[in-house]
């Protein structure tokens, strides 16, 4: 692995080939906010909150740092007017769905996002996909997935799988930035297997 030299927020940063900007930044102690990123998982690039400004080939572009590979001489700005505007707006959009998410509220303070800017549409889920991807990639159980597309997209537990796999796992709950994963699970359980929650947990 050869060493790559790039610039992040004005400082020279050494990175290894194959690293992403996000990894390089974190290794250098620079914080870039993320909502859909988890080290154990394949980068997804869906929340776009980690968008940074990159100078490349004489041009400036906006790219998700979680997916953009480092390259020699890259100039990266993790904060700029454009970057901050993007983060602020994305947070405001997401807060209309999950106004009580601690993670969103903390970021909203940093970027001056107004949680009441957009009319509330409480879905409580920001579709980061952490639960879906964790279940698929790490646990390989596929107990939770995406339904539908566009603004109608939602996560849903597949009752038949969840009833077998989720009892002793529930590892996706703490990953969820809004605690919706747990709610969706409980809802599935209540609808598909009414009364079961009060029963003792079956042994493996």
């Amino acid at each position: 692995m050869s060493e790559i030299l790039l610039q992040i927020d004005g400082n020279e940063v050494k990175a290894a080939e194959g690293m992403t900007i996000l990894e390089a930044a974190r290794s250098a102690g620079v914080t870039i906010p993320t909502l859909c990123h988890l080290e154990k998982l394949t980068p997804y690039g869906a929340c776009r909150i980690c968008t940074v400004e990159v100078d490349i080939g004489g041009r400036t572009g906006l790219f998700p740092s979680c997916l953009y590979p480092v390259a020699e001489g890259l100039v990266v700005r993790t904060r700029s007017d454009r970057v901050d505007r993007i983060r602020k707006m994305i947070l405001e959009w997401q807060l209309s769905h999950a106004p009580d998410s601690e993670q969103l509220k903390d970021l909203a303070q940093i970027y001056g996002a107004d949680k009441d800017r957009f009319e509330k549409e409480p879905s409580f889920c920001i579709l980061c996909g952490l639960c879906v991807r964790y279940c698929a990639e790490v646990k390989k159980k596929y107990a939770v997935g995406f339904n539908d597309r566009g603004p109608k997209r939602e996560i849903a537990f597949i009752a038949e799988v969840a009833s077998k796999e989720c009892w002793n796992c529930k590892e996706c709950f703490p990953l969820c930035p809004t605690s919706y994963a747990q709610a969706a699970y409980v809802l599935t359980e209540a609808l598909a297997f009414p009364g079961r929650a009060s029963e003792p947990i079956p042994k493996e």
Partner: protein
Amino acid sequence: MPRINSPAELEEFRQNVLSKRDPQKPCISICTGTGCLALGAAKVVTAIKEEIKKQGLESKVKVKADIRETGCPGFCEQGPLLVIYPEEICYLQVQPGDAKEIISETILARKVVDRLLYSGSETDDKIVQESEIPFYKNQKRLLIGNNIKIDPKSIEDYLVVGGYKALSKALCEDTPERVLDQVKTANLRGRGGAGFPAGKKWEFTRNSREKTKYVIVNADEGDPGAFMDRALLEGNPHSVLEGLLIGAYAIGAHHGYIYVRQEYPLAVENATIAIRQAEEYGFLGKNILGSGFDFTVHLHQGAGAFVCGEETSLLMSLEGKPGEPNQKPPYPAVKGLWGKPTNINNVETWANVPLIINNGAEFFTSIGTEKSKGTKIFSLVGKVNNTGLVEVPMGITLRDIIYEIGGGVPGGKKFKAVQTGGPSGGCIPEEHLDIKVDFDELAKVGAIMGSGGMIVMDEDTCMVDVAKYFLNFLTDESCGKCSPCREGIRQMLKILTNISQGKGKEDDVELLQEMAEITRDASLCALGGSAPNPVLSTIRYFRDEYEAHIKEGKCPAFVCRDLINFCIDPEKCTACMICLRKCPADAIIGGKKQIHVIDQEKCTNCGTCYEVCPPRFAAVRRLSGERVPPPVPEEERTIVGASKK
């Protein structure tokens, strides 16, 4: 079936086919493309066949006529279309009942049936030959010109018009490098939307060190109102295959896919037949034409997601995963299908390749503008007299397309805008109609070439409604993976809906612009990246319409239902009862000799009364942004004699 093993055998076979065909023998070409089929072309074909039997033509060897069921030549407005060769007599809007006359008059008596000919609106001169009809005359039909001359299900028809000559030339006379050079020199730019130079794209894939490479035909044409690629794949599938084969040779790929949306059943059918025939004849498979080059093709049907026209989503779909995009880089040229270098071009781009190889790069660069060469097919639709497919040289003006070819706006209405590039494109107003159509000029005025959709809009079109329409479309089609596209489109649509309902706020236009910018800059793929274009371009040129909606509660085009009202002018109403009978909401009060009055409480603003009121009365008025005048008091509604009381 003969397997053709060398260029010499190909030419020998071609000559053999040609020798069996008598160019003087009448041939009736009937368009059986999707448009004409919808207009009843299949019944016309049956009627013509029956008529030939009935009139005993089958036995008369001398005058036996061939019937050719072809793809779309473009003039969909006037379908079903029929052209009789060798005279090239063009009949329009042919009905099964016309079959008898066509056979007895034109085929047997060699006379033209006048009433089926084209006649322009200005003069009554009938035009006999297809190529003389203004709609066709002003085009340059290098790609779709062959559609009416060949049966897409017949490889021999394709060979007759010079098919697979370019393949033979490329494979057996040129090196892959030289083929690539020609496409680069021709400066063929991708016809799918972005206009990226195809040669450069090929080179990226070619230069990749991976051994396995793929080439793909993107036939997932999804823009509302666009059907260029459908017409090519339905009407001349071998030309697309030939282009793909030549590209594969230049790139060094030995396997290809045609990714076609399943909503194009005829394209699927014809392309499938073409692949099978090409395999039988040896244009696909091992050692093609004795060149040592191997290539196979599979056809894959898309499941109906617009976003799968975006190349990374297409690849996901092809791999059997949900059609959702991935971040670029890495580009498909580096990491594409199954992780291997992959070159994706759309149907029209591939179809241009044989043309370049046959005629040389200089021929291709002699057509078009400095940076956009060759022709482009547009689907000209909307408020224009001649709707259909038009193929024009790059650099033609929008005005020429709409007026010379399209015949202008129908019904004496005023032109308002032309929308190019589909949901990713923009609306261009009258003031820019003289720009030269190419990739860069369209971008300068805030639109895009896109894949070639061209929707003409007249004065009755509301630009807020247009923006709303496209965002509505994108709401259904956004995959929902990334937040800026999913949320940005959702929020922009909400605001547009509010504006169209008279609930717009003072700073809504600025908010739309702000959200448009974030959606454009932060979205994962081109769908989100270009989704704001319809909003931005309508604001750019028609901001006054937005403001009229917001500030005056007025829809100047009388489209937004919540902002319009209808009322009946008591001075003009003759109590004819037409609107009263047609009103679907029973909202019209009146009777014989009783002036009609609209009950505004019941009225749904559907506009039926406005449409059915005879023009000589024109008693129904549209209102927007103004109060509805109080109804005539009941005691004053009676009409006595010819005058009103």
